[in-house]
């Protein structure tokens, strides 16, 4: 469903990606952990087609149409209302925003408020709704839990779980080993653009993965 082969990309002298290869099958979530500057966001951008890798290739079955992206920034227009934002992004995918999505994320009562009037947590919820508005089957998630309160984080987990149950796949990059491990079927540790560890989670708990991460990155 999602495949990367020998990805290499540098920004001047800084190595963003160094021979990264992996594949993610339907129903799988790969969690990628790494310190700042490890190349996690670059990896997601290459998978999304926002950056062309200097070597190697990335393939997403279904192309850009099936990708849902949650990044550091919400990719919303502050002057527009929640509904107008979702309508705009949906129309670019020839889709229409469903009311159910707003309900699941607890955004019903905020739908006609401008995004600039919302709290950071609500904005992040709208960003999640934006990413899911076209029913994507491949999710690329860059620190998706940042700024979310407990209720919204739980709603996000449920939504991601639904996408996986329906045969979707996702790549999640985060600093937070505990949160990332909960969702993961596979785990990778990244340092200086390389995967230094890549294996199925295989029943390991967050504590065990965190311990392995500390050992691998140290």
């Amino acid at each position, binding site marked *: 469903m999602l495949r990367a082969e020998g990805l290499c990309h540098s920004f001047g002298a800084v190595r963003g990606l160094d021979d990264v290869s992996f594949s993610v099958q339907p129903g799988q979530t790969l969690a990628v952990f790494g310190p700042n500057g490890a190349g996690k966001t670059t990896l997601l951008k290459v998978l999304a087609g926002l950056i062309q890798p200097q070597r190697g290739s990335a393939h997403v079955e279904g192309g850009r149409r099936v990708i849902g992206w949650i990044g550091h920034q919400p990719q919303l227009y*502050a002057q527009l209302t929640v509904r107008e934002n979702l309508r705009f992004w949906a129309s670019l995918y020839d889709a229409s925003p469903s009311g159910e999505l707003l309900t699941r994320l607890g955004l019903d009562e905020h739908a006609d408020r401008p995004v600039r009037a919302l709290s950071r947590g609500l904005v992040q919820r709208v960003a999640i709704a934006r990413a899911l508005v076209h029913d994507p089957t491949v999710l690329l998630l860059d620190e998706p839990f940042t700024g979310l309160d407990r209720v919204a984080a739980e709603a996000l987990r449920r939504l991601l779980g639904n996408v996986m149950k329906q045969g979707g796949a996702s790549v999640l990059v985060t600093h937070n080993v505990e949160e990332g491990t909960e969702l993961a079927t596979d785990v990778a540790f990244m340092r200086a653009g390389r995967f230094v560890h890549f294996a199925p989670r295989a029943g390991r708990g967050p504590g065990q993965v965190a311990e392995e991460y500390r050992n691998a990155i140290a």
Partner: protein
Amino acid sequence: MRSPDLLRHAWTVASKDLLVEFRSRTAILSVAVFVVLVLVVFNFGRDATAVSNVDLAPSILWVTFTFAAILALNRAFQLELENQALEGLLLAPIDRSSIYLGKLIANLVFVSTIEVIGVPLVALFFNVPVIQYLGPLVLTIALATVGFVAIGTLFSAMTVRTRFAELLLPVLLLPFMILPLSWAVLATGRLLAGRPLSEIAGWLNMLAVYDFVFVILAVLLFPATVNE
């Protein structure tokens, strides 16, 4: 991608930009005030006995439009940097040229609005016969505007992620504006002087060719300019 999809997505982007501008009104009000102030300064800063109004007005009209348009064009892609919406646009399964065309449409509406404010003020301050030649004047303004807004929209996309975008845009754009501006000034001058329309036909043709060439070039080049 099929042309109807290209145009539909372009209109989606343009209408979003116009709605955002309508909600904030910050840019249009700032530029409108700029146009009024520049024309007031020119009005009081000229020696009416040295150069006749009909000779002076076309240059002042186009200098004012040029700088107002640059201010307006600077904001075209700034809007997309806010919250990194540009990444979302680039990720969407649409032809990237439709993003350019959408921005071009929104910028044309924006700059035209400024011109609608500027023309009556020039007529008022310089006492030139605008109403009498309104049709050909609108045609001249429209043809010149399409050309420099087409190039300006492309350069706005190129410079938006640079550190000195506000400075870099005019530095890149002004050399490309020399030809259409000079044709527009000459055509406007002849019109306001009451010369026959046949005298400006050549300049209008050249403006139309300029528009055609640079709109096509910009549509083709835009996808490469927004790659990271």
